[in-house]
C-alpha cells in the first residue's frame, strides 16, 4: 500500500442498508395493527410473540408496497420470494428469530438517481446513479429501553413490516450519502411506499464505510455503524469514520472489521461490544411460510402506480416549461405540489413560470406560516400543511396569473389578491371587484386624465427632456397619473397614451 498523507489521497467507499417501515395498517406476518405513540405492548398478538400453535401469514399490502418500491427503482421482481429465520437470542425479539429474506428477496437490483448540491442554491448540482443490490421484506423488532440495572421491552414495534434496502458500495462521500437518502425518501414517500418519518423511527440506517488509496481497485476493510436514525447521523458518521480510518492507516495500523455505534450528542462513533457470535445467525428457510409466487399481472398492475421519477419531472419542468432550477426543484420535492402545479398549468398553459413563481414564493410561504400558527408553541406535532389544506384551487391560481398577464391588475395587486384567495378560496375576479382593484383600461376616461396631467406646468420640464430624446423622462409623468387614478390605471395603457399625446 502506498504511503499516502493528505486526506485527498484517499477514496471513501460507502454502502448503506436502509430499513424503512412500510405504509400498512397491520403488521407483516400478524394481523394486529401498529402505529406510533401507543401504550407499550398494546399492539401485540400471539403471532407477534411466536406463541406455540401460531402461524405467520404474509400481509398482501406489505408485499405489494415492496414490489412497488422495486418498480420505482427499476429493479427486477423475481417470480419467487421466500422467507428465512435469522436466529439470535436478544430480548428485542420474542421468538428468538427474526423472519427475513436471505436468498430470495422480493426486489433484486435497481438504481436510484441522486442530485448533489450545486455551487449555490440556484445552481443544479451533479447527478449520479447509485446501484441497489436488493431489497428484502422482513419484520421489525421490539424496542428496548434501559433503566437502572435492567432493560424494559415493548413489542409494539415487533412485526412491523420493514423493507431493508441494500446499496452497492457506490457512494463516495458524505454528501453523496446524504443526497442518496434524500432521493430515496422522496421516492418512497411519493410512491406511497412508506412515510419515512425519522422522528418516529420509520427510517433507520446501517452505514458501511471503508477507505482506500485513490486509484486502488481492492476495497479496504470496512466497519459498520448501526442504527442511525437521521440523515445527518449518516452524514456525520461518514465524515467521522472515514477520517478515523485514514488516521489509523496513516499511523501504520490496520482497520479492524467491527460493528460500531454513533453518539449523536457527542458527535463521535464508538465500538459496540459484539454480541457473542452475533454473526452466526444459522439462517434456514422458514417452514411456516411457503415460497411466494408473484404473478406478472400483479407486477403490471403495480407498474401503473409508479409516479413520474422526481428528476425526470424536474428535467421536464426545466426543459419543456422553461422553469428555473430553483422553482423546479421546489415543486418536484412534493408529489402533490407538483401535481397541483400541473393542474394550474393545464388551466392556463401560457405562463408556467408565473404560476411556478406564485407557488414557490407566495403559496409555500403562506402554507408554512399556517403550519407554524396551528402548531403553536413548543414541539410541533402538526404535520406541515400541504396544498390540499388551503381553500385555494389550482384553476383559481391560474386565473390570477392570467389576470395579471392581461394587465387587468398589476403584479403588486396580484400579491394582495393572492393573500385574500389563500384565506377565503374566492375567485380572483370576485376579489378584484370587491376591492375595486381593477385597473382602469377605459381609454376615453384615462386619456382625459393623461391630457390634464400633461397640461400641468409642473411637468413641463420632464416633457421637454423627453422630447429632447431622454426616454426615461416619461416615467416622471406616470406617477401623477397613477395618483389621479388611485393606482387603478393599466400601466402599459398609460405609457401608450403618453407617447401618443406627446408625439
Amino acid at each position, binding site marked *: 500500500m502506498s504511503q499516502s498523507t493528505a486526506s485527498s489521497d484517499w477514496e471513501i467507499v460507502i454502502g448503506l442498508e436502509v430499513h424503512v417501515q412500510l405504509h400498512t395498517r397491520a403488521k407483516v406476518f400478524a*394481523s394486529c395493527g401498529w402505529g406510533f405513540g401507543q401504550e407499550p405492548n398494546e399492539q*401485540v398478538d400471539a403471532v407477534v410473540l411466536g406463541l406455540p400453535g401460531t402461524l405467520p401469514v404474509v400481509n398482501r399490502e406489505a408485499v405489494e408496497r415492496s414490489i412497488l418500491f422495486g418498480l420505482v427503482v427499476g429493479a427486477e421482481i423475481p417470480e419467487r420470494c421466500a422467507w428465512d429465520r435469522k436466529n439470535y437470542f436478544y430480548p428485542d425479539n420474542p421468538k428468538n428469530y427474526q423472519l427475513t429474506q436471505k436468498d430470495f428477496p422480493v426486489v433484486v437490483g435497481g438504481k436510484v438517481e441522486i442530485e448533489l448540491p450545486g455551487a449555490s442554491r440556484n445552481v443544479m448540482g451533479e447527478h449520479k446513479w447509485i446501484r441497489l443490490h436488493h431489497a428484502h421484506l422482513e419484520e421489525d423488532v421490539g424496542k428496548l429501553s434501559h433503566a437502572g440495572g435492567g432493560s*424494559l421491552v415493548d413489542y409494539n414495534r415487533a412485526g412491523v413490516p420493514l423493507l431493508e434496502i441494500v446499496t452497492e458500495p457506490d457512494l463516495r462521500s458524505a454528501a453523496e450519502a446524504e443526497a442518496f437518502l434524500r432521493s430515496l425518501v422522496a421516492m418512497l414517500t411519493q410512491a406511497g411506499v412508506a412515510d419515512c418519518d425519522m422522528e418516529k423511527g420509520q427510517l433507520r440506517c446501517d452505514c458501511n464505510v471503508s477507505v482506500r488509496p485513490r486509484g486502488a481497485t481492492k476495497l479496504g476493510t470496512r466497519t459498520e455503524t448501526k442504527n442511525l436514525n437521521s440523515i445527518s447521523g449518516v452524514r456525520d458518521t461518514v465524515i467521522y469514520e472515514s477520517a478515523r480510518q485514514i488516521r489509523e492507516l496513516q499511523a501504520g495500523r490496520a482497520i479492524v472489521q467491527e460493528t460500531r455505534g454513533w453518539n449523536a450528542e457527542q458527535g463521535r462513533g464508538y465500538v*459496540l*461490544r459484539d454480541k457473542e457470535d452475533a454473526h452466526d445467525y444459522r439462517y434456514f428457510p422458514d417452514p411456516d411460510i411457503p415460497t411466494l*409466487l408473484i404473478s406478472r399481472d400483479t407486477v403490471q398492475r403495480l407498474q401503473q402506480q409508479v409516479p413520474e421519477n422526481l428528476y425526470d419531472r424536474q428535467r421536464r419542468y426545466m426543459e419543456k416549461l422553461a422553469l428555473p432550477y430553483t422553482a423546479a426543484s421546489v415543486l418536484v420535492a412534493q408529489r402533490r405540489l407538483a401535481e397541483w402545479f400541473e393542474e394550474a398549468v393545464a388551466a392556463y398553459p401560457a405562463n408556467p413560470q408565473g404560476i411556478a413563481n406564485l407557488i414557490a414564493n407566495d403559496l409555500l410561504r403562506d402554507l408554512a406560516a399556517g403550519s407554524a400558527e396551528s402548531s403553536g408553541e413548543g414541539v410541533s406535532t402538526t404535520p406541515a400543511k400541504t396544498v390540499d389544506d388551503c381553500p385555494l384551487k389550482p384553476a383559481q391560481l391560474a386565473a390570477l396569473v392570467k389576470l395579471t398577464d392581461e394587465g387587468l391588475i398589476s403584479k403588486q395587486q396580484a400579491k394582495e389578491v393572492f393573500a385574500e384567495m389563500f384565506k377565503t378560496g374566492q375567485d380572483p375576479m370576485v376579489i378584484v371587484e370587491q376591492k375595486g382593484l381593477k385597473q382602469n383600461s377605459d381609454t376615453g376616461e384615462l386619456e382625459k386624465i393623461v391630457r390634464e396631467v400633461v397640461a400641468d406646468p409642473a411637468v413641463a420640464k420632464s416633457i421637454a427632456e423627453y422630447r429632447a430624446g431622454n426616454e426615461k423622462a416619461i416615467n416622471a409623468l406616470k406617477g401623477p397619473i397613477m395618483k389621479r387614478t388611485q393606482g387603478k390605471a393599466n400601466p402599459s395603457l398609460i405609457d401608450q397614451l403618453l407617447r401618443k399625446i406627446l408625439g
Partner: protein
Amino acid sequence: MAEGFDIEHLAKLARLQLTPEEKVLYAQQLNSVLGHFRALAEADLPAQVDDALVVSEAALRADNPGPTLGAEAVTRVAPASRDGQISVPRVVDDEA
C-alpha cells in the same frame, strides 16, 4: 465424529451446557438427522415436489388490523414486568 458442525459451538449458540457424554450423544443424533437430509438432497426428485411448497398471492392476508392481546395479557406471561413492559436483565449496546 460430527461432520460439518462443531457441537461445542452449536451448544454455545443455543446457550446449552453439555456434559462430555451429552456432547457425544447429541453429535451422533445430529449426524443421524443430517444423514436423512443428505439422502433427500441426493435424491433425484421431479420439479412438482418443489412446486408443492409454493403458494400464489391468494394465500396472502388482507391488510386489516385484527384483535390484540393487550399489555396486561402480554406482561402476565413474562417472568417480570414494569409499567406495561417486560423487564429483562440489562442488555445494552454499550461502548466496549
